């Protein structure tokens, strides 16, 4: 089952295109940074597409350019080669159709939960009563009913990330872009929040691109997993996840889940090892120079 669903990036992109209209298209994207140590290619020739309602994860070792790709797709980084389009509209700068959830804690500490969630509605000028009512709907959706008037400092890390998720959902983006939103949380909380994300995704049919380094999270949540190489970040392999829907965290105990994890880890291990070797040699070089 797993072997059939594992494909090369080129074949997978062709297959995705043949599925019909894509909502997000990333075409031959490369990004180079000029540093004191020379030019570093963070991402090279990355192409993939996401269909409406699809949940796709990008997984790779530290330093593979996942966050750079997140920033490119989100429009936070310009000056790259290639093209990113949303329903055919080229992304230049941030795009109203893309909502972003960040890895770092990003709630506004001076606003209550409901005021945080109402933020994007306030920005577009929605009347106060209407936006608070709408925000309360999304607060409930992420399971924080009863915490509307609390401030972020009164919440746990997982609850704050749910506030950030609700805030992004309140802007009703066509594509939800998440950069390791649960990276700072413990494994149990992460699994349970994964359930919540799946419920929301299934309710809203929300097209989602998740950047993660967590294998379990990627397989638990995704319809497809894109594996990246260590620097420069290229797409190494695409894995279709044929686990049944609706899904919840119970799926992690199934044999199929274990096989997907093992298959992806097989590819990832090689890249992660390269990353560690590269880090070690850089430390040694630095020491030798000193």
């Amino acid at each position, binding site marked *: 089952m797993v072997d059939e669903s594992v494909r090369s990036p080129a074949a997978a992109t062709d297959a995705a295109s043949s599925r019909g209209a894509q909502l997000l298209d990333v075409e031959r994207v490369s990004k180079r940074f000029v540093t004191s140590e020379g030019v570093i290619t963070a991402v090279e020739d990355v192409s993939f597409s996401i269909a409406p309602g699809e949940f796709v994860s990008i997984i790779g070792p530290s330093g593979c350019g996942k966050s750079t790709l997140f920033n490119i797709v989100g429009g936070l980084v310009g000056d790259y080669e290639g093209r990113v389009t949303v329903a055919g509209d080229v992304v230049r700068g*941030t795009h109203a159709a893309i909502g972003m959830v960040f890895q770092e804690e990003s709630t506004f*500490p001076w606003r209550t939960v409901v005021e945080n969630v109402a933020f994007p509605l306030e920005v577009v000028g929605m009347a106060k009563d209407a936006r608070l009512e709408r925000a309360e709907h999304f607060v409930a959706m992420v399971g924080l009913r009863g915490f509307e008037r609390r401030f972020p400092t009164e919440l746990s890390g997982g609850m704050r990330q749910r506030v950030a998720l609700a805030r992004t959902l309140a802007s009703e983006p066509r594509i939800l872009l998440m950069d390791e939103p649960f990276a700072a949380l413990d494994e149990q909380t992460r699994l349970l929040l994964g359930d919540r994300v799946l419920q929301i995704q299934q309710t809203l049919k929300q097209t989602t691109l998740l950047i993660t380094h967590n294998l379990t999270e990627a397989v638990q949540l995704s319809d497809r997993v894109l594996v990246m190489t260590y620097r420069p970040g290229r797409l190494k392999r695409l894995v279709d996840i044929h686990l049944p829907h609706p899904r919840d965290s119970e799926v992690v105990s199934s044999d199929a889940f274990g096989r997907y994890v093992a298959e992806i880890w097989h590819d990832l291990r090689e890249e992660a090892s390269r990353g560690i070797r590269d880090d070690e040699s850089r430390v040694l070089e630095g020491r030798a120079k000193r």
Partner: protein
Amino acid sequence: MSKAPLREWMASRVGARSIGIATVAALIGLVELAIRAGIVNRFIVPLPSEIIVAIPRIIVEENVLHRFWQTAQELLWASLLLAGAGIPLGALLHRFRIVRLACETWVGALASAPIVLMYPLFLVIFGRSATTIVMIGFAAGLAPVILKTLEGLSGTRQVLLNVGRSFKLTNSQQFWKILLPAALPAVFVGLKLGLIFAMINIVGVEFLINFGGLGQLINELAERYDLPGTYGAICFVILTSIVFFDTTERLERFLRPGE
């Protein structure tokens, strides 16, 4: 009271304030004892009990409440000017890198300049009036407000700015809805520092130019060698500071809840 409730009470706002007042009372008691025991010369530091007795006297005979109000008004105007000019100037330095590179060092130098010594120049410009006192207070407190505003705005976490960018905020929305609220704790530290510098200079200039307020009263009482009265007037200077600090903290909690 068992240990746990006592610890809870000490951690509460009322408990903390009570401990603060008790500590001050204990220190005053220690000074009283030190003077009575001859450790501290009573011709330099009067007995705290004498100062307490002198306070009603200076209220009645020296019109201290009116002078307190005069100094407080000067400090209020200086602090309004500090907020009105210092915060926009800090924002300007943050917005334009070239202005920041050109001016930041000079603003830092201004913070350590003995502005009070320039009072003759201010007298020439503004005359022997409350305006001179307010302007010296303002000039003395300006640098910390500018520098801390700049620090607060520059220290805003990039992820919060990215949230604003992801929601396509305009520059103006980015400033008013994210940058400024995020910078408020640092801005208020700057305002409090500015208030301290302004207060010192306002009382100092009142003393020097012998014009109104608590500074003039301290000068007069010191010249009469009325030490309990002098220290009583200094207590009113401290009271002015407490009132302004407390107001500033309340304003900060109002503008930046959730801390």
